[in-house]
C-alpha cells in the first residue's frame, strides 16, 4: 500500500531509495544489528545520514532538520525501515533532541544539538526506576540544590545502551512535598560524572541491552536543568509522545514477513500439512499489517491536513508490538527443531549454531520481542490511555 504521491514526492522517494542502496554500510548487515554491532559500527549509518543532512527528519530546519513535509518524513521512515537500516539512536535524535530545542535555553541548544546530530554524544534515558515503571510520576531519584549544582541520588533502571552513553536525561524529584507530577524536573547528566555507575542487566535472550544506572552524590551543574524546575513532567510527557509515534513498525514487520515466507518455503514442503497452516497464519498477520498500515496512512493524511492525531500513537504501539511478537513467534516455529538453539552472547564465530543461517537469530528475536508489550508504556497502559482519552471512560 502506498500513499498517493505527487510527482515531486515520488521523485523524493526514489532518491531516498537510491541513497540507501548506495550508502548503507555493508558491515552493518549482520545477523542481528541490535546485538552484533560495536558502538562505532552502529554509528556508521548515523554519520552518513548526518553528512547528507537527513539525520533528524523531525527537527525544524533551524536546528538542523531537513525541513521535510509530514508526507516526506513518512516516506523517509517507510523507505529506511523497509530497507532494514538501523535507525539512528532514538534516545538522542527522537527523544532528547526535540525536548532540548522545544524547552531548552539557547546555551543548551548550542551545546547539545550539534553533538546529537553528529553522533558525537550518545544519549540514554533515565526515566524508569525499580519502583516506577508504568507509574512514572512516582520517581524517587532526588536532586537537591546546593549552590550552582544539584546533588543527585537515585537508581534508574532498564536504561537502554547506557553502557555506550555519554549523557543521560533524567527525571528527578526536586520538590519532595509537591504532588507526584509537580515535583519533577528534567536534568541532563554527564555519564562521566563521579558517582555514576552502570551495571548490566542481562535479558532472557542473553543479550546486554539494558542496565541499572546508580547515581550517588552526582554533582550536576544547574545549567543542565531543562526549562523550569518542577516542570519536568510536562517535558517528559512531550517526549513520551514522540517515543510512541513510530511504533507501528510497518516496514520492519513487512521485512520480517517476507523473510518468514522464504524460511517456510525452504523448511516445509508444500505437501506437509504444516505448510498450509503457516500459509494461513502468515496471511492473517499480513492482514493485521495491512490494516495497521492503512490506519497509519490515514493518520498521516490527517496530520498533513493539520489534524491532531490524538492518542493514535497508543494504537500503533499496541498493534505494532503485538504483530511483531506474532511474526517472531511464527519465525521461531518455522525453523522446527533448530529453534531449540540459542546463540551464545557475546556473539562469536567460535560458537556453533545448527541449521541454516536464516534461523540463527530466530530464538533470540522471539525471546527479545517479549519486551515490546512491556516497554515504552506497557500495552495495558496504552489501552488505559485510549479508554480515557478516546472513549471517555
Amino acid at each position, binding site marked *: 500500500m502506498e500513499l498517493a504521491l505527487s510527482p515531486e514526492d515520488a521523485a523524493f522517494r526514489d532518491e531516498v531509495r537510491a541513497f540507501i542502496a548506495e550508502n548503507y554500510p555493508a558491515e552493518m548487515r549482520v545477523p542481528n544489528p541490535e546485538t552484533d554491532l560495536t558502538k562505532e559500527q552502529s554509528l556508521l549509518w548515523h554519520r552518513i545520514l548526518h553528512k547528507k543532512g537527513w539525520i533528524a527528519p523531525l527537527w525544524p530546519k533551524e536546528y538542523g532538520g531537513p525541513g521535510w513535509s509530514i508526507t516526506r518524513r513518512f516516506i523517509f521512515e517507510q523507505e529506511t525501515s523497509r530497507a532494514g537500516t538501523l535507525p539512528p539512536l532514538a534516545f538522542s535524535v527522537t527523544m532528547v533532541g526535540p525536548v532540548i530545542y522545544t524547552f531548552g535555553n539557547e546555551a543548551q541548544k548550542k551545546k547539545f544539538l550539534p553533538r546529537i546530530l553528529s553522533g558525537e554524544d550518545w544519549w540514554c534515558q533515565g526515566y*524508569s526506576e525499580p*519502583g*516506577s*515503571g*508504568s*507509574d512514572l510520576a*512516582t520517581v524517587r531519584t532526588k536532586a537537591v540544590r546546593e549552590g550552582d549544582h544539584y546533588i543527585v541520588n537515585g537508581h534508574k*533502571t*532498564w536504561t537502554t545502551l547506557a553502557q555506550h552513553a555519554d549523557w543521560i536525561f533524567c527525571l528527578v524529584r526536586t520538590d519532595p512535598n509537591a504532588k507526584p507530577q509537580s515535583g519533577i524536573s528534567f536534568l541532563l547528566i554527564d555519564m562521566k560524572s563521579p558517582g555514576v555507575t552502570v551495571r548490566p*542487566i*542481562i*535479558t*532472557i535472550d*542473553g543479550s546486554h541491552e*539494558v542496565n541499572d544506572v546508580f547515581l550517588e552524590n552526582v554533582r550536576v551543574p544547574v545549567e543542565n536543568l531543562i526549562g523550569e524546575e518542577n516542570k519536568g513532567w510536562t517535558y517528559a510527557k512531550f517526549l513520551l509522545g514522540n517515543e510512541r509515534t513510530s511504533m507501528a513498525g510497518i516496514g520492519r514487520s513487512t521485512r520480517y514477513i517476507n523473510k518468514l515466507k522464504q524460511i517456510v518455503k525452504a*523448511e*516445509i514442503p508444500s505437501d*506437509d*500439512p*504444516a505448510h498450509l*497452516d503457516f500459509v494461513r497464519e502468515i496471511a492473517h498477520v499480513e492482514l493485521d499489517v495491512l490494516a495497521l498500515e492503512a490506519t497509519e496512512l490515514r493518520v498521516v493524511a490527517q496530520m498533513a491536513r493539520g489534524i491532531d492525531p490524538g492518542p493514535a500513537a497508543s494504537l500503533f504501539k499496541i498493534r505494532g508490538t503485538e504483530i511483531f511478537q506474532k511474526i517472531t513467534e511464527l519465525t*521461531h*516455529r518455522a525453523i*522446527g*527443531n*533448530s*529453534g*531449540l*538453539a*540459542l546463540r*551464545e552472547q557475546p556473539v562469536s564465530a567460535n*560458537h*556453533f*549454531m*545448527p*541449521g541454516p543461517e536464516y534461523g540463527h537469530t530466530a*530464538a533470540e528475536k*522471539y*525471546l527479545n520481542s*517479549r*519486551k515490546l*508489550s*512491556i*516497554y515504552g508504556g*506497557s500495552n*495495558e497502559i496504552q*489501552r488505559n490511555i485510549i479508554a480515557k482519552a478516546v472513549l471517555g471512560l
Partner: protein
Amino acid sequence: MDIQFTEEQELLRSSIQRLLRDQYDFEARRKIVADEQGFSRKQWEAFSELGLLAAPFTEDAGGLGGGPLSTMIIAHEFGRHLVVEPFVETVVLAGGLIEQLGTVEQKRSFIHDIIDGKKIWTLAWTEKGGRFDLANVATTARREGEDYVLSGEKTAVIAAPWADYFIVSARTSGNRRDHGGVSLFVVDRRAAGVDLKSFKTIDARRAAEISMRNVRGQLLGNEGEGVAVLEACRDRAIGALCAEAVGAMGELNSATLEYSKTRKQFGVTIGSFQVLQHRMVDMFIAHQEALSLMQHLNLSISGGEAGLSRLASGAKTKIGYAARFVADQAVQLHGGMGMTDELNVGHYFKRISSINIQFGDPAFHVLRYARLDAAA
C-alpha cells in the same frame, strides 16, 4: 478423574521435593548450567540414589515398578525446578525403548547402568528437513556380520553432549518418509566415525548435531519396525514433557500471583486492577485444565489404553498452548523483571518454549489429533 496418589507415590513425590528444595534451588541450577559440562554428575548420582532413575522400570528389569505415573510425578517436580539433567532422555526415551525392545542381555546390562546412574542415554531421531516426522529418516544402516554400519546425520539431539549411548533411527530399507524400513540401533557415543557439534539450547541445556560415518551399531528390536515403536515412545515422552510443562506453569502462576500482590503502582498493588485479575484467572484456568489433561494422559499411558496417540497429541496441543499463554502472561505481568536473566520467570518461559518444540509443536499435534480421528 483426580488421581488419588498411593502412599508410595506420595512418598516418591515428597522425597523428590525435599531433594530439589535442598539441592536444586534456582541459584544451584544457575551454577550447574554455567558449568562447562552444563549439567551435574553429582545431581545425577543423587537422583539415582533416591531411586528416581529406577522408578518407572518394572521390577523384572531391576526397577521399582512405578510405571508412567512415577514418571509423571518426577517430571512434574523436575519441571517446577527446571532440572536440566536428562531424565526424560535417559529413562523415559532410551530406558523405555530398551525395556520394550531389548534382548535379555541388552536389558540386563543397559538398564542396570541407567538405574545406577552410570550411563546417560538419549534418542537421536530428528533429521534436517524432517521436521517432526518420525519416518523422515535418511540415515542408513546396512548389515555387516553381527553388527550394522550406520551413516547419516541427526539434528538438535538434546543431551547428546552428555550421553554415553544414543538410540539412533536409521533406514534398513525403503525410501525417506516410508513408514516401514526404519530400525533402531544402539550406538556408542565414543565409537569411531561419530562426530558431535554441540550447542546450548534455549532452555540452557545442551544438544548436538550428530554425524555418523560408517559407525557400528547394534540392532534394538526388530528390523523395519522403528517408526511404530517410536510413535509409542513419543506418546510416553509427551506424558513426561506435559508433566514438566504443568510443573513450570504452576510455578509461574504462583510467582505471578505473589508479585501482583506486592508490586505497587499508582498507589495500589497491581493485583487490584481488574484487567490483571481476569488475566490471572485465565492463567489459573489454563493450569487447571493442563493439570487435568496431564493426569488423564498419564493414566491412559499407564493403562495402555486404545486411542492413546490421539490423546497424547491432544494433550501436547492443549497443554502447549496453555503453557505458552501462561508463560507469556507471567513475563508480561512481571514487566521488565520478567525479561531478566536474574529472575526465574524468564527461564520457565524458555523451558516451556523448548518443550513446545520437542516431539512436535502444538500446531503439528493438533493436525495429528484431527487426523487420528478421521482414521478411526
